[in-house]
């Protein structure tokens, strides 16, 4: 994690120009502090639910939390890259469901083996990511508009490709049911948590240890300055959208494994769950700042709220209501931090 923090500090210190050593260490402390705080908030929310509801304190509830976190988690991990470039990707939710339903068509209607269908899901979502990258990085469309367009395209495409039919993936216990064990074994062990954390580590390495990752941070801080210093910004920026697309594909597989049935035209709104998790995790919508660990914690804050609130016998609309407050508070923290930084 130390490397993660230091990368951001490098960027910030670049921006601040002649910041002294003491300022750097101060920044370091505050960023470390922020992730620590949301981690504490996560545990406190969990503890609160556990204290209020005995039924919440069971292993099976923890499995439910993991089950609900996978697709949001993958979406959030991918879109973290885009948000760090100061862009947004609204298409991830529908693109994930479009890819998943395409996989279903390939499996059910074209009778391809299941592993082919799963690869099709990844390929489809990555292709949408490539399109987004092309539109935003190459053609310079505003990311909000470009991905709003691809959001509608993928939403319509899922209905077209599936002929407005629901696609059902194989059930557990059938000969092709093995893919469900990627995320939860028949003994209810949440193997998906390992997959999610594995992908998160991979994302952290790309973001902090590779040149592409550093360029993505730089583009978010100051795109023009990055371009002038000789960086191929088109390639790096497009890469962020492609990663978001690939992760949406992973989310599609996780969704199919967890929920089995994919409805045509669905997925609108999922992107907001993912973006909210990123924002709660402390990544700035202004770009240039962000961390994978924060996104992961943000994802679990969102899902613990989602799974936990019904244990207090609250109806779904209360969950959305309360989650909304969490998002607003998190965004305010982001704005507050930026204002402080610019002072």
């Amino acid at each position, binding site marked *: 994690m130390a490397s993660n923090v230091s990368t951001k500090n490098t960027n910030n210190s670049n921006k601040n120009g002649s910041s002294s050593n003491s300022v750097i260490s101060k920044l370091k402390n505050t960023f470390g502090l922020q992730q620590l*705080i949301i981690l504490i908030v996560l545990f406190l929310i969990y503890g609160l639910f556990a204290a209020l509801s005995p039924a919440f304190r069971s292993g099976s509830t923890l499995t439910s939390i993991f089950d609900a976190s996978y697709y949001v988690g993958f979406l959030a991990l991918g879109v973290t890259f885009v948000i760090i470039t100061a862009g947004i990707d609204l298409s991830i939710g529908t693109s994930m469901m479009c890819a998943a339903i395409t996989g279903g068509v390939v499996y059910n209607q074209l009778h391809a083996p299941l592993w082919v269908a799963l690869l099709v899901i990844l390929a489809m979502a990555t292709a949408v990511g490539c399109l987004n990258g092309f539109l935003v990085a190459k053609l310079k469309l505003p990311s909000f508009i470009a991905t709003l367009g691809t959001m509608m395209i993928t939403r319509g495409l899922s209905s077209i490709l599936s002929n407005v039919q629901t696609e059902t993936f194989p059930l557990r216990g059938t000969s092709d049911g093995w893919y469900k064990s990627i995320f939860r074994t028949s003994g209810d062990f949440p193997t998906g948590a390992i997959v999610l954390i594995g992908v998160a580590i991979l994302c952290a390495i790309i973001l902090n240890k590779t040149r592409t990752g550093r360029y993505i941070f730089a583009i978010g801080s100051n795109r023009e300055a990055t371009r002038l210093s000789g960086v191929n910004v088109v390639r790096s920026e497009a890469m962020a959208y492609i990663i978001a697309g690939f992760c949406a594909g992973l989310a599609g597989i996780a969704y199919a494994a967890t929920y089995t049935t994919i409805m045509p035209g669905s997925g609108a709104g999922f992107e907001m769950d993912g973006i909210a998790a990123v924002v709660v995790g402390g990544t700035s919508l202004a770009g240039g700042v962000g961390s994978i660990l924060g996104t992961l914690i943000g994802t679990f804050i969102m899902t613990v709220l989602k799974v936990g609130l019904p244990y207090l016998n609250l109806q779904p609309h209360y969950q959305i209501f309360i989650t909304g407050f969490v998002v607003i508070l998190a965004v305010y923290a982001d704005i507050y931090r930026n204002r402080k930084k610019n002072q």
Partner: protein
Amino acid sequence: MKKKILFGTIFAALLLLVGCSGGNSSSSSKSSGGNSKNIEVVAKGFQHDFWKAVQSGAKQAAKEQGVTMNFVGPKDETAIAEQLEMLNNAVNKKPGAIALAALDTKAEIDAIKTAQEKGIPIIGFDSGVPNAPKGAVKATASTDNYKAGGIAAQHAYDAIKARIDSSATPPRIGIVSQEVNSLSISQRTGGFIDKMVQLLEANPKIGKGKVAVTGHDKFKNKVNASSAKAIIELRVPADVTDAAGKTEASALLKKNDTICVYGSNEFGAKAIINADDSVGGRIGNTEGKVVAVGFDSGKLQINAIKSDKFLGSVTQNPIKIGYEAVSLAVKAAKGQKVKNIDTGVKWYNKDNVDSKEIKPLLYQ
């Protein structure tokens, strides 16, 4: 320093929010741990009037039986993932029993099996849990749609009997059925057809083997329409849009020998009402008009009944569905033997549409 204060505030606000919400309901969740006194109800919807009525019946039963009941449902009937999460939560709470109206049994099969392994009995209600693993669902409280279709046929027949006796040409009875694949709607259609055939054949003017059923392969019989003394014609629209429904209903109403039409759900009834406007008012309760009967409710259909366009309609009893679902769940939680319950239907017409008995069962 300021930053610390900010995060402190955020944190306190979070705690407060979650704490408040907990406080509201902590009294109702207090008795958990007792388990067999807790019943979880997972419905197919929440906002719709139909589900509100189901919930009120469920509440009543929970109160009478002295159990804690938690009623949840997804935002609409396509939100399968949302319902699955609700069912998972319900199972994790280890209640005495779960009442479930499944949106998609296949998607929920893992959760149903987990409930079975944990020894939590499941009670189906409304459309129940079709194709559930053996032994998981102990009993179902639902409408006997086949019988309900027959009730509509009986009322329709009583209204057209005199006309059959005096008519020179073979009378035609038309049906608009939204589709013939789903179990509930095809049972309502089939129940109507079978009962109507039986009633017509019992009429000495028509006689056995003289009623032709035409229009769809699923229900067609071997009687030749040209030699039949009465014809039942089933119309199934190409797709579930008001326009397609209207086309089929118009085709029925335009035939001069049609004396009765039946819409086997809200969609079918609506199709008849929409078509009637375009053919210039063929349906009604007065002499010489086509007798119309419907199923379910909805604003158009209730208006048609109040304005003497429709003879009457059959409605399910959502309050009883909720009541019986929870009652069965309580019994199952105690380990008692339970069996399926027909929650019954009610016939309503102009006279009782606003009565205390009928009004709560209808939705606009």
